[in-house]
């Protein structure tokens, strides 16, 4: 994935210099970090206590469902599901178009 030629300032983040009317680069980063801190340490923990969200998380964990899995091999429930599907298919292979 080669990048097209860019000015060196772009490669290292062109926003690294102060612009009139905008906070200094360091201040901008500090504001972003403060926002992350508030969201992750205050807002999201509060959302996690909402009963519907709590129920959803508990249900996923009880069923071995990891919604952040990117591939089937990352799903905790997959070995169990795979075994169950094998049993069903082997019991009636013709139903699945297999001999």
């Amino acid at each position, binding site marked *: *994935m080669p*990048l*097209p030629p*860019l000015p060196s*300032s*772009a*490669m*290292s*983040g*062109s*926003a*690294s210099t102060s612009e009139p009317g905008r906070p200094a*680069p*360091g201040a*901008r*980063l500090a504001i*972003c*970090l403060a926002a*992350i801190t508030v969201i*992750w*340490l205050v807002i*999201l*923990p509060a*959302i*996690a206590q909402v009963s519907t*969200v709590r129920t*959803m*998380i508990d*249900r*996923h964990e009880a*069923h071995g*469902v*990891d*919604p*952040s*899995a*990117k*591939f*089937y*091999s*990352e*799903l905790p*429930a*997959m*070995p169990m*599901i*795979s075994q*169950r*599907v*094998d049993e*069903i*298919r082997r*019991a*009636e*292979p*013709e*139903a*699945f*178009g*297999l001999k």
Partner: protein
Amino acid sequence: MEENRPRSPWRSEDVWSIWLGWAVLAVALGATMVASTGAEKAVNPLTGMLADLGGWVSNPLDALRDKNGASVLPGLVGVFASLLVLFSVGLAGMRERTREFPLAFAALFGLTVFAYLLAGQKVVKHLNLEYALWALTVGLLISNTIGTPAILKPAVRAEFYIKTGLVMFGAEVLFHQLLKLGLPGVFIAWVVTPTVLILTYLFGQYVLKIESKSLNLVISADMSVCGVSAAIATAAACKAKKEELSLAIGISLAFTVIMMVVMPPVIGWLELGPVVGGAWIGGTIDSTGAVAAAGDALGETGLLVATTVKMIQNILIGAVAFAVAMYWVTCVEKSPDGARPGLIEIWRRFPKFVLGFIAASIAFSLLSKSGDQGEAIASAATATSKTLRGWCFCLAFVSIGLETNFRELKQYLVGGKPLILYVCGQALNLTLTLAMAWLMFTKVYPNAAASLAK
């Protein structure tokens, strides 16, 4: 001058990513085979040496403990040391400077841990807002505020991390799982999916006239195959720009969250049942984790069918990566005179790491297919590569963020074409997958649906 000489193919990033990926797989497999000799079940002695961060709700320090309450710190040190050694050897093999690499890598690894920490918050995790998004965000925040510090730059090697991670990833792409759900699964996942991919790409080229073929291809693949993993593999195979990969992943994650929430009630309203509904979810929602969450909302059968269809679709990733790489070097990258390249030129241009990925996939598929013992050993061995490739991808996304400027991303959004491409492609995907799932499970193989629903 040394710099002007063409680099030997043996010193290329592609070849070294294969050596590194295979080395990890070989060590994991060897250790598992030795430790499992005479044991009742397969044991991978390296598993405890590597770790991911755990989940947390309100105290981020909870992420430093796994489900059993054990500290993950030794595992994190293991991951850091393994990857530092691995990539230092790779850089040395490519005859590149390695002196500044350890310090830069340590700093980059720290940012990667931070991204994993953000992704591990349980609300975030259970909404399928996975680490790729937060790794990109962390990198973007730094590069677009204070700029990427010079100390980090020697370790900002997104392509190297992605290619090495993909070679390891090959071990998890097991071709023999194709017939898991018999012919209905093949028709839903292996007939509809490539059809949607090709039609969406053609729609982007000839109707929307998207200038960048690689952006078109990456969005088409991540929408039709399996989200982030497919986007990573396709982007690397067609040499897409980093901003294109970031954009494709951003769009995919946004729509995945919406579809994960909306599809189960729609399936209930349409009274499709857990088998057809599960197959519809498995064939259309991009991310595997979101498929499981949406399938679970339909009940046990829904979870079973949705995740199995998705698993069969996941396997397509190997075939898609190979086909995209071939298409790219033979049809897109033409010679200056417009002629199609010859075989030698195709070989020269072909992204070799794709062959390493396919070879790992074939080797582990054969091992897994060889019997229960082989399957258990393959599964235990890939626990090591699974952890390391996850960290490789996360390092890559932080690196991409560090190299990306918001202004560069903005140019791709002009006219909203990528968004239109995704929405139209997904609409086609939803229509064709539902039609095929209904046809397979109610008309052609109704007994399969009855067996699954028991």
